[in-house]
């Protein structure tokens, strides 16, 4: 794998992780502060979408979707999924810091397991067929 592609892959993986975590945080904050209760009616979703925090979250999640699509154009799905799974750890941390959620020891243990898995996969290259 050439250095340019390696750099591009890591940069896009970082964008995917950060846009997803902060997008989810903004969306959750908005859904719990002024978005109203979600019911089976589509109008409740439309009302929620116009909450500024929800809107900002959606913008970040669109960025996440596009950057993930770009990344998938050259990297295997089985590489992209575990590497970007670091976002789950970041989501838990943001939930604890900004939403005041209780993170149990089991959840922190899960965080460490995910980090170990991410590290293991990250030592490889995006294409499984390439030499390591």
């Amino acid at each position, binding site marked *: 794998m050439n250095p340019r592609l390696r750099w591009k892959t890591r940069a896009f993986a970082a964008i995917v992780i950060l846009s997803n975590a902060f997008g*989810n*945080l903004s*969306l*959750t904050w908005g*859904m*719990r502060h002024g*978005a109203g*209760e*979600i019911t089976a009616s589509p109008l409740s*979703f439309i009302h*929620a979408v116009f909450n500024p925090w*929800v809107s900002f979250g959606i913008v970040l*999640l669109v960025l996440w*979707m596009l950057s*993930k*699509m*770009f990344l*998938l*154009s*050259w990297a*295997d*799905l*089985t*590489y992209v*999924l*575990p590497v970007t*799974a670091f*976002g*789950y750890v970041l*989501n*838990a941390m*943001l*939930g*604890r810091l900004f*939403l005041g*959620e*209780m*993170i*149990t020891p*089991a*959840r922190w*243990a*899960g*965080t*460490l*397991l*995910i*980090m*170990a*898995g*991410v590290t*293991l*996969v990250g*030592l*490889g290259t995006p294409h*499984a*067929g390439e030499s*390591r």
Partner: protein
Amino acid sequence: MKAWLLLAVIITSTVTADLLQSHEMKQHGEIHDFRPSGLRRLLITLARKRNLILSVVCMAASFFAFMALVQVADLSFAVPASAGSLVIETILARLILKEQVNARRWMGAALVAGGVWCLSL
């Protein structure tokens, strides 16, 4: 019960969307041109791909279910629990997309899946 139902919708639609997206983007090939004009041409080309449109529909279903889920569950539960799709996706990527999944990736995916399971406890 509502949270688990929403979670099932999220996982099913996410798996379908990721497989369709990966298949279609591989067909398209690596993206080199990141200039605005290049990106515009790319979006026009991609907007005509049926599988990609279907994947966006699945992602929308997943997204709306997620919006409802974060109202009834913790973010630190909703996000990792929805990653239950990872193991199914790794298996289907091997079976359907014919991706080469070596031992390191299987082990990494298994650790991530185990971690996700712990996070959801």
